[in-house]
């Protein structure tokens, strides 16, 4: 599917690599001659906070942030962060593509909040007219040989969804250029695992 404008949110927890993933998509878009904007939202901490990158690809794109209900896809490296962003930004008919592995907030650990089940998250997004696809990207990353390649597993899944206006080859090439040299092999395996898993589902 190729559209004139694509609005994508990559959400996760600080340290999971959502910003790196969003830059990879942005660079790949530019390489294919498209215009791109990537706006980042994160707290002041290096790790552990909610992070969301707004990726916008297309000609008539000015603002770095996606408007309410304006995202065709929310790619979530962590399920709760997927829900947080889907509620606010996912368009009717949009896709929440999420990792299944939770990163418990301290609020939940100390008993001040409850973590929603994956079923509850699916139910909620479907009620909003969205589609949910969940994969265990963390396990796939471990299978690829490095748990930190989880973000690239999700990029592979995103590519596999067929909803990106960017070729799979370009995306892979940019992944290669933007990960530490020693982890290129693991990242490419991670990409393939994500790609294949989504194709199967």
């Amino acid at each position, binding site marked *: 599917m190729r559209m004139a404008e694509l609005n994508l949110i990559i959400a996760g*927890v600080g*340290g999971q690599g959502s910003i790196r993933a969003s*830059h990879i998509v*942005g*660079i790949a878009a*530019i390489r294919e001659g498209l*215009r*791109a*904007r*990537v*706006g*980042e*939202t*994160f*707290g*002041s*901490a*290096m*790790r*552990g*906070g*909610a992070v969301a990158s707004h990726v916008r690809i297309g000609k*008539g794109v*000015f*603002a*770095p*942030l996606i*408007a*309410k*209900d304006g995202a065709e896809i929310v790619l979530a490296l962590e399920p*709760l*962060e997927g*829900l*947080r962003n889907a*509620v606010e930004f996912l368009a*009717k008919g949009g896709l929440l593509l999420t990792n299944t*592995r939770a*990163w*418990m*907030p*301290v*609020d*939940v*650990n*100390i*008993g*001040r*909040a*409850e*973590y*929603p089940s994956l079923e*509850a*998250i699916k139910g*909620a997004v479907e*009620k*909003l*007219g969205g589609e949910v696809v969940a994969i265990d990207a*963390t396990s796939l990353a471990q299978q690829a040989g490095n*748990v930190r390649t989880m973000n690239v597993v999700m990029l592979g899944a995103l590519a596999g969804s067929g909803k990106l206006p960017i070729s799979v080859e370009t995306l892979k*090439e940019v992944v290669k250029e933007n990960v530490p040299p020693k982890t290129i092999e693991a990242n490419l395996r991670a990409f393939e695992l994500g790609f294949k898993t989504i194709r199967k589902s």
Partner: protein
Amino acid sequence: MIGFADLIVEDAPGKRVLLMGNEAIARGAIEAGVSVAASYPGTPASEILETLALAAPKLGFHAEWSVNEKIAFEVAAGAAITGVRALTSMKNAGLNWVMDMFMTLVYGGVRGGFVIAVGDDPDAHYSSNEQDTRFAAFYGEIPCLEPANPQEAKEMTRYAFELSERLELPVFVRSVTRICHASGDVELGKIEKPERKPVFDRHWKLPWRWNVYGPPGPVEKHRWLHEQMPQMKKLVETLPWNKLELLGEPTFGIIASGIGASYAREAVKMLGLENKVAFLKLGTPTPLPEQLVGRMLKSVKSVLVVEEGEPLVELQVRGLAKDVNPDIKLLGKLTGSMPPVGEINTDIVAHALAKLVKRKLPADRPRELIKGEIKSLVAPRSSTLCAGCPHLGSYWALKLALRKVGGKVPIVNGDIGCYEQGGYGIAGKEYKPSSSSESVRYPIDAPYETLDTNYIMGGGVGLMQGQFQAGYKDGAIVGVAGDSTFFHACIPAVINAVYNKAKGLFLVMDNAWTAMTGHQPNPVTGITATGEETKLLCVEDVAKACGVEFIRTVDPFDLKATTAAIEEALKSDKFAIVVARHVCTLQAQRQKKFVGKRMIFDRDKCTGCKLCVSFGCPGIVFKEGKAGLDPILCNGCGMCAEVCPTGAIRVEG
């Protein structure tokens, strides 16, 4: 394909690359042939100097992390006085540190181009306030360029050097979080080489140019500054970033500055009003292009002013409207059409615009109702310290020591750095205001509830002295700060405490890096911004030289020893400094210097007491009445094994 460090110095005009706003500002300075760049890290502006530090060794200019913003400003200003091009960058609050030098430097200005790049932070994502730098430009009577996107950020920075040399004054480039930390495709330009020879001339074009007291003195130099304004005003009328679009005979107009213009364009698109509203896009909120604004005001019946920050443009437009078109209806922050605080976005502008043109935005009411229900599912995620962070150990020890010898209601004064999360609280918890007339002690559930006061860099060690001098006797008085903050802002306060005989505990958490802003080096790191080795300073040596008599050094991973040292300090009846030193865990892991221990969790031994949970490490989880270690987050620092009272969490061996 080349790496970022090569790309940023690539002389490839016309090439399109993805750059973050901050990187684009740095590239603009590189293209302008900057010779000296100095900064102190501060989100959202840190990547400007980080990028310049990557380029500096390759292009042969100087880039440094200064000890604070004031010194960074002076380093850059000193360079500009010798005629070379210089840049200083900082976050919003950093500007407060430079105001003294800034307000005086403009009395006579500069010789080489001097650009002050400030990253403002509407919505206070990473800041203690939402201050608007554009007012400083107004106050200091110098121009302020405000980009709408990363491309403009680059172009404007490059041009700002030229403008600065033309006016012989510093020039602001004001960006906001959504420019600083937003990336976009940027077309590169040609790189000028910094080949100017620094020169010095005491009376260059003005007597005693660089000595504000030199005759004819400050008032005459203030007059000189005023005399630059007409030229400034004339120049901004024709800048490409100030553009008026008047098509047909529109009734409505938008005046939008900086990022506001990007949101306004989207809002126009959303409402299908392309070519139906007049649009004045501003790149210089001060001075305003008054002719262009005047033409807009004469052409329409009502105008929406869109800007991020305080209503600086709106106030000026109001003033102009009085002369040009007193009947015009002006909408903005002052009329309640735009929110007075926080940041703006496309939705906010679209709502205001819809009201202006009396149209309704499409709304899906049933879906909004469902959203309301779903929101209760979205658990908050409070920001935390990292798994294995040494500050966790320091805060745990502080909590135990205060419980033992801290008196009824100790006061813990915070400061700015990762450890300020000790005062972020827990988002999922409700805190009620109190109206007690006596001191009140509140329990600390997690380290994130430790800090009682927190404002600015170096603020805590000053506040604690005031509490002491006021005669506070209900509990211990404590200040905490990190290594970089100690050097940035605490040293005069330490001297003040010694000189004026204040007492209390000053806990310095030294993790060897300016960690919160992305691990920049500082005087305790041993390297410079460009990675060169340099003298390594030591907090204890400085404290000793300042006359502090009680100084202890501990490793916060050793909770027992740290608690004991803090207890001793609290009992000492002196101005006591405890340095809790352990390198930042993230940085140690990156440099492959972190040795994780093998942790064992024995579920049967766990009584579910939650003591480990209150330690606050994100690597500890709690499910179905029992604790546990997240195998992915836990890095084996071993601190929680010291916390666990039942031996359920242990270090192997």
